[in-house]
């Protein structure tokens, strides 16, 4: 069985590892070619969200192509291992915010374990993979494409299983803290987007403020996330997609023209890789 192992890399700033792999295996080359089937030419179309017929350029760089011996296919319903550390981190968050009793904690862990066991559906079937212009696809650490943002999934699961376990007052605290955390993360994403745009298309202070305000209401629907937005920090020639309304209302004519000339019709893939070594040392579910 050919196991395709490709990963997103910093496309421009860093020399890809595979360039030096001059004596690559023939199968590996076929696999590279397979990946590049996704690469379509795309230049210079407007990059707000109204251009439906845009051509898309897929920016995917492979670190390595591994050829693995034939083995058992992974169980598609099995919960992805990398989500476990996210679940553990969420329980640590609950512990600090809700201050549950020991008995409540036991129930929370049991419910979280059950919710974790049902997360197999987050991995997209290989034949349902997709990419779209200026969108960031979410991938797991094994390059499996994900149906949804794993943090959103773990948090929405927690909001469901917590309610019957803890008191109303504790749950209200969780909701408030959870909302504040999301708002903070959203503000971080918006701050990065505005900074990236301003770097290429200089804006006045009121324009930046207006853009930030509008994006705070909208950015969640774009699929941008703390981790996925960072692919743009490492690929500075590309800019994240902006809603058409933001382009129309914030930019003047000259800026809008410059925006439309940006060569940003790319589809990035961001890999969610839970770094357990750097995470809090609390293992609630095994």
């Amino acid at each position, binding site marked *: 069985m050919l196991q395709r192992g490709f990963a997103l890399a*910093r*496309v*421009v*700033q860093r*020399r890809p590892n595979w*360039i030096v792999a*001059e004596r*690559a295996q*023939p199968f590996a*080359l*076929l696999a*590279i*070619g397979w990946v*590049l089937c996704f*690469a379509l030419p795309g*230049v*210079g179309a407007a990059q707000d969200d109204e251009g439906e017929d845009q051509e898309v*350029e897929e*920016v995917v*760089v492979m670190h390595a192509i591994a050829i693995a011996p034939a083995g058992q296919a992974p169980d598609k319903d099995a919960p992805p291992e990398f989500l476990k550390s*996210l679940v553990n*981190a*969420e329980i*640590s*968050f609950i512990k*600090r*915010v809700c201050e549950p009793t020991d008995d409540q904690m036991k129930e929370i862990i049991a419910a979280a374990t059950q919710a974790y066991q049902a997360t197999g559906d987050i991995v997209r079937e290989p034949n349902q993979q997709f990419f779209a212009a200026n969108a960031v696809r979410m991938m797991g650490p094994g390059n499996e494409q994900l149906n949804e943002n794993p943090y959103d999934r773990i948090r929405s699961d927690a909001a469901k299983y917590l309610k019957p376990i803890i008191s109303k007052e504790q749950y209200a605290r969780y909701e*408030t*803290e959870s909302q*504040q*955390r999301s708002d*903070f*993360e959203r*503000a*971080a994403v918006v*701050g990065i987007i505005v*900074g990236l745009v301003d*770097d*290429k*298309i*200089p804006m*006045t202070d009121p324009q930046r403020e207006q853009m930030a305000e509008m994006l705070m209401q909208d950015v969640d629907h774009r699929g941008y996330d*703390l*981790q996925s937005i960072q692919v743009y*920090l*490492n690929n*500075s*020639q590309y800019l994240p997609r902006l809603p058409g309304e933001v382009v129309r209302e914030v930019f003047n004519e*000259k*800026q809008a*023209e*410059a925006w439309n*000339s940006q*060569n940003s019709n790319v589809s990035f893939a961001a890999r969610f890789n839970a770094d357990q*070594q*750097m*995470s*809090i*040392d*609390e293992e609630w579910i095994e």
Partner: protein
Amino acid sequence: MKQFVMAWCCLLASATTAPAQNFQIDINQFDSWIFSGMGDAKLAREKLADRAEMEIDRIGFSTSLLDSQIAKLRFAAKGDIKRFYDDVEEAHRQFHTMQEAGKIGQENINDVYQLASPLAQRLNAGIFDEESLLKKVARVCVVGEQAERLRARQKRQIKLQSDAAITLFVATLGRRLPMTQVQRETLMEIAMTNITLPDPTHQYAQYLLMYELSELPQGKLKEIFDETQYQTLKKVYTQGLGMKANLKRMGMLDDE
């Protein structure tokens, strides 16, 4: 880059089916490695001219410019564009020299790529950086009160960018080290008071922040977090400390 990947794959794939057959890279392929981020050489020239106008606008946001100053800035920007295309020409010359010597085959692909890659990087990073003629002329021709306003705006911009980078860092940290709103606010306050990144948009800014975490008053950090959280924080800044030599090498940290 995409074109480079394509070419490389095709070249290698053909090598597997016809080992004896050598391949060649032509000048169009070479140019596509340089200009793919902006379409092609012609489009890039137009976009650079637009970018220059925008950079002049950026200066104009701080202080209104006289026509004579705008003319000088435009002239300087043309110089930057010319300097870039002169370097492209020089790369072309070296490419043709290699071509004439028969050194653009499979075994030399890395060498050829190394000719194009720095130019592509310069183009993608933006040629109107602080070392550009445009910025140098701006520093000279904008004087007195105008210069003060310009400097004040630049300083404010860096502070804004630095705060955005710190916010990103703390938000990302919160996913490894879950914290309450009070803890997050206090950490932000300590970080924003004590840290201003010299180059917040640098690719390694987040690593610098990991390092800077170790420089923050640890007593205050211990007051914010419980022991388990603090140990996680230590793991993060220990990784930052491990990057110290690299950060210095890249000029992001001063030698003591």
